[in-house]
């Protein structure tokens, strides 16, 4: 294992060398401040990283470090003050260009209560005017795959928290996004449900070669799911450290990964990087 700072420097310098291959997502020196009443709050300060194809990258940071702001910047929902976000080498412009093929999932499932599970899954396809029959088939297949067979016509209010989050996952995956942006998607779930959905997510993502940016508070989740973990500093957020995770267990075995040698070391190291005690 290299020192965190050296790895962080590596991650930044990689930005240049990988441009020819145009990774799905490259974040280059972005910064963002918010103006409230009479004061300026810098939230993100000079942050760079790259998400390669088929890679799962986790971002962990202290509470309130601006992770959600980062996500909104990456999606183009808010513009950065400085720096650039590139999707497949193409910069996110101020207007017009929206990242294509991005799936976005939050801790809140954001299911529309007036739509049944399957109608929620079909929302994105409806917006893009994909033929009804095709949308129906894809949505139903994915719900079955996520263990929701027989619940397609249930309203969200009749589903458990875990089932609702699976529907949200299906709604994200059904559009076949190349990149998934997940903002603490499993944080509200109980431990058992969380492990099951984590391993389902890893399987579905690995099988289809998608890239994932996973923002989380949960260090164990970050280490067990990701190829690489980026640790952020307090506000204004910068990159503090980056770790390539190499564990000796099947990628979808959430318990095995947690028990494997080295897991505890990563968790302990990232915990100390987070500097929580001194916050």
């Amino acid at each position, binding site marked *: 294992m290299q020192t965190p700072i050296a790895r962080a420097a590596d991650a930044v310098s990689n930005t240049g060398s990988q441009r020819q291959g145009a990774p799905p997502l490259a974040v280059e020196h972005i910064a963002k401040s918010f103006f409230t009443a009479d004061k300026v709050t810098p939230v993100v300060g000079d942050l760079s990283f790259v998400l390669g194809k088929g890679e799962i990258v986790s971002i962990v940071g202290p509470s309130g470090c601006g992770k959600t702001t980062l996500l909104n910047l990456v999606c183009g929902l808010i513009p950065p003050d400085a720096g650039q976000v590139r999707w497949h080498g193409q910069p996110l412009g101020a207007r017009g260009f929206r990242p294509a093929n991005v799936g976005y999932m939050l801790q809140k499932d954001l299911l*529309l209560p007036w739509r049944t599970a399957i109608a929620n899954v079909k929302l994105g396809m409806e917006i*893009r005017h994909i033929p009804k029959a095709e949308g129906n088939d894809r949505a139903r297949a994915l719900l079955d795959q996520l263990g929701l067979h027989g619940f397609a016509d249930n309203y969200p209010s009749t589903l458990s928290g875990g089932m609702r989050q699976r529907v949200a996952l299906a709604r994200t995956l059904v559009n076949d996004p190349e990149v998934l942006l997940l903002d603490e998607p499993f944080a509200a779930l109980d431990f058992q449900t969380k492990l099951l959905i984590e391993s389902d997510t890893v399987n579905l993502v690995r099988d289809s070669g998608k890239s994932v940016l996973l923002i989380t508070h949960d260090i164990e989740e970050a280490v067990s799911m990701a190829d690489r973990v980026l640790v952020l500093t307090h506000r204004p957020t910068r990159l503090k450290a980056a770790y390539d995770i190499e564990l000796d267990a099947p990628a979808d075995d959430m318990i095995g990964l947690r028990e494997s040698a080295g897991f505890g070391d990563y968790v302990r190291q990232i915990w100390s990087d987070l500097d929580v005690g001194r916050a």
Partner: protein
Amino acid sequence: MSAALDRGRGMAAVADHDPSAVSVTAAPPGAIRARRFRRSLLVLLVQALILIAFLAFWEYEAGKSKQSAFMFGSPSAIWSFLRKMILDGSLLRDISVTGLETVLGFLIGNLIGTFVGLSLWYSLFVSRVVQPFVIAIGSIPIIALAPIIIIWFGTGLASKIAMSTLSVVVVALVTSYKGAIGVDPDQINLLRTLGARKPQIFSKLVVPASLTDIFAGLKLTVGFALIGAIVGEFMSSSVGLGHAIFQAGSLYAIPKVFASLVGTITLALVLTFVVGKIEQLLTPWRRAG
């Protein structure tokens, strides 16, 4: 599972928090249904007893002297007026005229109010511009407009519909606008990441998400529409419940006033019931919890 869903369908989420439900979870669904039926029967019985006791007290007090019978009427006198008005068809005619005015005012007022309220979501600028005007118009007591309305719309049906519409429109506008701007910004962001533009966000998210508030407004405005129609009839009319109440009051025919009031209450209950049924039909997901 199916028993739990069954229970949920009847009583919505209440069943889950009802402490008595805990003890019966093991009982077969039939027994639960029977128990619930007995309980609602008991509620009905107590309500009937209260009503009967009240009417009996009224009848007894009114029978004590000629004055109190004249001043307060009595249930038996009200009933005989009611019978007469039903038999000669005047009650039905008054109810249907006032009902027509109320329903038309309710529909026109809510259509305009809801349309404008939801449309204001489109532009923060426009909504900020019109806000003080809406508040100003909303603060006018509708009855103060009645003389002008009669000058503009005449003494016929149109002036009552106009009164009823005016009583409804601002409330409908405010409740639907409140619903539209109350939409979760995360949900708007989600739709944007799915590629939705503003018109799609409006039709797929804002309108259905506002339905809860819109229906709350509809239930509120049923009463307002009826008040508008009756106030319009008070000012000048030859038919309708407001006309009957006003005329009977002028003639000191107190039991007839109460008999017409019974007609008004019946109309209000029927209209509220219909709106509730329509809400149930249009928002099936709210029964599913």
